[in-house]
């Protein structure tokens, strides 16, 4: 037993002595399928519907849009104010402006919460195609945000139109309906998608939410305090391109006559979101998870 001969190093283990022998292999009885974006979409849908933060943010969003919409509608209807032919849809603006904070929050949480919890490592291990995961997250989130916003905006719009017929509101045209429901919903959903990309870049929920709410409100607030004549142009630009003003363009009541008009806000947010997504994708591929 205690033959303390120094063990010789040439004594290689058995398995090393026969490297040519076939290793045992294991084959799973579960069929292996080729995974695609569809699988990632199903997975992300399960994820987004199975956490309470989704229910909370979207619940508060609906509450804000409907609540503020009903309130403003009721106040205007009970007053003697005359809308002088203006579309009643524009009253939905206030609810959607506040509600967009919820969409921004949910967008950030969709990506950044995975980093906060460490879930991202599990996800990226299960699916090393990182771009596919990001795309699936974006698509699922965009559809959820768009549908919820569209339904809320349409309900509020119908309510306002029926309520304010007696206050001299003009009957909204087809284009006005389209811009006031689909247009603004696309805008808000894209704003959420931008937040999702920012969340993926910053990888920190609180930081990304703060940044996005700052982006939403800061330009307008800063512009309010630019009294100097030399900054007139900057102030004007900040006003015109601030997110609240861009949203109000969908209701054709911009703060100014110059600046973006028509469907311009949609193209602006689309461009910014595309750039952010490209950055998020590039960083996701390059960085360690």
């Amino acid at each position, binding site marked *: *037993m*205690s*033959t*303390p001969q*120094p*063990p010789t*190093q040439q*004594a290689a*283990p058995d*398995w090393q002595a026969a490297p040519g022998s076939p*290793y*045992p*292999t*294991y*084959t*799973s*009885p*579960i069929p*292996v*399928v*080729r*995974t695609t974006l569809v*699988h*990632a979409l*199903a*997975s*992300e849908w*399960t*994820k987004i519907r*199975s*956490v*309470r*933060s989704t229910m909370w943010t979207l619940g508060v969003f609906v509450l804000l849009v409907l609540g503020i919409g009903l309130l403003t509608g009721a106040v205007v209807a009970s007053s003697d104010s005359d809308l002088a032919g203006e579309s009643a849809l524009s009253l939905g603006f206030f609810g959607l402006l506040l509600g967009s904070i919820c969409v921004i929050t949910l967008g950030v949480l969709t990506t950044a*919460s*995975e980093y906060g*919890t*460490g*879930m*991202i*490592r*599990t*996800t*990226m*291990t*299960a*699916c*090393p*195609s990182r771009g596919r995961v990001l795309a699936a997250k974006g698509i699922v989130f965009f559809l959820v945000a768009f549908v919820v916003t569209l339904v809320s905006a349409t309900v509020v719009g119908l309510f306002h139109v029926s309520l304010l017929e007696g206050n001299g509101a003009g009957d909204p045209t087809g284009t006005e309906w389209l811009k006031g429901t689909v247009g603004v919903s696309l805008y808000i959903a894209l704003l959420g998608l931008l937040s999702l990309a920012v969340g993926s870049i910053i990888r920190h929920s609180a930081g990304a939410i703060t940044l996005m709410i700052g982006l939403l409100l800061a330009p307008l607030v800063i512009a309010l305090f630019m009294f100097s004549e030399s900054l007139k142009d900057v102030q004007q630009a900040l006003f015109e391109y601030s997110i609240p003003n861009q949203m109000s363009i969908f209701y054709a009541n911009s703060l100014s006559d110059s600046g973006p008009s028509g469907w311009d806000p949609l193209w602006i947010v689309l461009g910014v979101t595309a750039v952010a997504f490209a950055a998020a994708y590039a960083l996701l591929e*390059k960085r*360690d*998870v």
Partner: protein
Amino acid sequence: MIEAVGLTKRYGDKTAVYNLSFQVRPGAVTGFLGPNGSGKSTTMRMILGLDNPTAGHVTIGGHPYRKLPNAARQVGALLDAKAVHGGRAARNHLLSLAQLSGIPARRVDEVLGVVGLQDVARRRSKGFSLGMGQRLGIAAALLGDPQVLLFDEPVNGLDPEGIHWVRNLMKALAAEGRTVFVSSHLMSEMALTADHLIVIGRGQLLADMSVTEFISANSADFARVRTPDSEPQLREKLTSALTEAGGHVLPEQDGALRVTGLPLPRISDIAHGADVRLWELSPHQASLEEAYMRMTQGAVDYRSTADQKAGLQQPLPPGAQPPMPVPGQGQPGWYAPPPPQQGGQPFAAPQGAPGQAPAGPYGAPAAPGTVPGGQPANPYAAQQAPQHLPQAPAAAPQTPQPPAAAAPPATAPAPASAPVTDPTKPEDAR
């Protein structure tokens, strides 16, 4: 089969993993050992394509992880039990992972049953205990019924039943022909589970060998010899006789001798020839834990030290003795036998005590009470008692060199076995 070649990862100027090359074969449980912060998790993350190596590469079945088609069906991993969204129910968490890899949903309920979480499947994982989280992580790893499995510290937080279950699970998975790669910092755990060991320290490979090989290469077998307590001169006589015969003799704390380099029958013959009676002659093998500790001693990043409470203690009343330190606390190197070569201390001995290296292996300094009073001729007993009386180990540097010519630390090198058991050299350098 996992194959790493020259894997290196740097974070800024800190090198987490350096030039790591190894293979993990199917059909066996391969233990991945190293102290905290030695780069185990970083290596696992690189295997899974989560972190990009600074240099080198690692493949699974010949492909880099991120190039594997449907990776989750080929590789399952438990990296971190907390890597889940706490607000999501256990079942939904697994369902989302199953959908991502095109695994049928009923497989989710199956693995929940396998890990024993079926009763809490619809509870949010935020409320899970560490052990339950660990089980959920194992369920996620098993979900794809993969060929290769990686587990990072799977028994953390598990109850004894759970530990037993994980052990058997690993073995069963390997027996099915799968590649099982398990990291741990517990050698005792690996001794029971693993067939093969890969040991790293400070991000570098220290050993890559089978468990049995690891033990024999790193923990020399030794014989314990005890001579009659009442006749200390016999002990000295035997010591010199054994040393002459080429053995390596170390005194043990309780008066026994630890002999390496001589087979048991030879020791008996020598004792007989020297006319020394023996009370004990027994074979021993240093434990795996001991071997591992010695190997990684130089590579431990976070080491506890003795709590000195310097300047905070009341002066001891005259005549009172300071409490004996608990063996091992703040005494690096106490647990391992010294490597049998001469020249320098191979592992850290921050206290810088010249007497520490020889005395160290036997742990706590002998308590005064345990030194047999009737052995004035025993050089070790005579020495150790005063040495450790004054105060905590910090006072040790004043220890005089062993006066006796037969003192083992000075005269008992066994250069023959030195290259093999030198723990400071990486395995591949031997």
